[in-house]
């Protein structure tokens, strides 16, 4: 009997859905747009996070030692730096390797190569490449070095190349997030109002059936259930459509991302696949909850039992 009733409520809900099909389509469209804008927000978040991480991984401080600093001295600095809690790893490039690198880099430039040959001593100092655990730790590390006795051994410290990029990404993604957030908020608001109105119209369309139902002693959940279920339908259908729309969209964006980051290691599609239930599941739950709230308000206001 419970099952029979549930099937009937389901049938009534779908009848109501079809009876005002154009209204249903409009409602679903708006909810789809809501889903898409929320996913846009997620995409922005994921991309900016990935971009920052990719760039952060490239950030390090290069400490160029004076050419007359010996290897033991450099290694002493290395072990000193290793003892700092902010430091993640240190790469040591010896004088010889540094020279080799330099040579390779300027292979085309005969003049530089020639002048290198003329020098008896190695003019290139050793290098330490220091990676911090956290991007914000670099100033502290530099600060420590500046105030240490080792400072005089160092010819030059190279940092801040990437800081500008990170800042730019951050401000760009902050702006995009603001847009996405406002867009989502507007769509959520519109969607709630539309669902409210659609259910109101559905109740109006069915006022005779409702009157009869009440007269013959249908229980409240039988009278109200179909409208609540109809609102849930909208959420579910819109969610499925949103998934169908979002995947091709991210498929379209992916090659551009690969070009931009010059790497294929970051995949939006993988992100959405890995977090499918978390993103779409949560979004669906939220939208259903929202629809239940708006339709309940409509039911309470327009469906006096």
């Amino acid at each position, binding site marked *: *009997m*419970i099952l*029979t*009733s549930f099937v*009937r409520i389901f049938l009534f809900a779908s009848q109501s859905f079809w009876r005002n099909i154009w209204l249903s389509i409009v409602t679903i469209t708006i909810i789809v747009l809501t889903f898409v804008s929320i996913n846009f927000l997620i995409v922005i978040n994921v991309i900016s996070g990935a971009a920052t991480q990719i760039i952060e991984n490239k950030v390090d401080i290069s400490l160029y030692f004076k050419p007359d600093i010996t290897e033991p001295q450099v290694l002493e600095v290395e072990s000193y730096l290793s003892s700092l809690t902010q430091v993640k790893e240190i790469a040591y490039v010896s004088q010889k390797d540094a020279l080799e690198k330099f040579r390779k880099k300027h292979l085309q430039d005969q003049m530089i190569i020639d002048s290198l040959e003329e020098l008896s001593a190695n003019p290139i100092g050793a290098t330490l490449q220091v990676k911090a655990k956290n991007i914000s730790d670099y100033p502290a590390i530099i600060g420590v070095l500046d105030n240490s006795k080792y400072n005089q051994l160092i010819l030059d410290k190279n940092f801040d190349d990437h800081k500008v990029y990170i800042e730019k990404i951050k401000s760009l993604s902050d702006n995009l997030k603001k847009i996405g957030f406002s867009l989502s908020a507007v769509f959520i608001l519109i969607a709630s109002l539309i669902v409210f109105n659609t259910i109101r119209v559905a109740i109006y369309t069915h006022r*005779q*059936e409702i*009157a*009869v*139902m*009440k*007269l*013959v*002693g*249908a*229980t*409240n959940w*039988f*009278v109200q259930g179909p409208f609540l279920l109809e609102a849930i339908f909208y959420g579910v259908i819109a969610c499925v459509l949103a998934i169908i729309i979002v995947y091709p969209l991210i498929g379209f964006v992916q090659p551009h991302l690969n070009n931009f980051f010059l790497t294929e290691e970051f995949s939006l599609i993988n992100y959405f696949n890995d977090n499918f239930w978390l993103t779409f599941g949560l979004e669906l739950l939220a939208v259903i909850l929202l629809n239940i709230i708006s339709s309940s308000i409509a039911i309470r206001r327009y469906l006096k*039992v």
Partner: protein
Amino acid sequence: MIIFKNLSKIYPPDVAALKNINLHIRPKEFVSIVGRSGTGKTTLVRILIAEESPTKGEIIVGGWDITNIRQSEIPVLRRQIGVVFQDFKLLSKKTVFENIAFALEVCGTDREKIKEIIPQVLKIVGLENKQDRYPRQLSGGEQQRVAIARALVHRPKILVADEPTGNLDAFNTREIVDLLLKINEFGTTVLLVSHNSEVVNSINKRVITLDNGQVSSDQKVGKYLL
């Protein structure tokens, strides 16, 4: 079967529709309720099916005090009281069969039971061979008979008819009244609200007259006064 005790109803802000009504309607009785327009007859019906709650007093149906009935219990009450109105309240897009089935469907009755009950109630109202017609293909009297059939699906102990013949001609009116009398003979308590003095006078059963929200007369075998 039905007891009204010191019942008053004031529609906000100050329309006193019923004033201190005291009535006792016994099981299997056939009661006509008459009175001028706006004297509270429909209000009495609406309180009986818990569409309105009384402002004062008590109402007891079949030993059940429904004065402060809970929202969730109203459906239980309505399944025990069949109601028909002047405007039939049939669904125009459903056939006779579907209209009656609808009343059972929304109460969770299963398919087999519905198929079993509908021929029975259609037989009572004499519409066995018109179950596939739409309301617009029926006369007013036939439409009202469908409404009565629908009111009977839960085998109610009480049948309330609020001006059931208001829209009908003399011939159809007679048929509906005869049908109500027949249903009463089967053991159902019938409450007939009517304007029609000829009808009421021909029934020769209890007549309660309301005047200005009060019971002005209550005759065992009555005539339409006023």
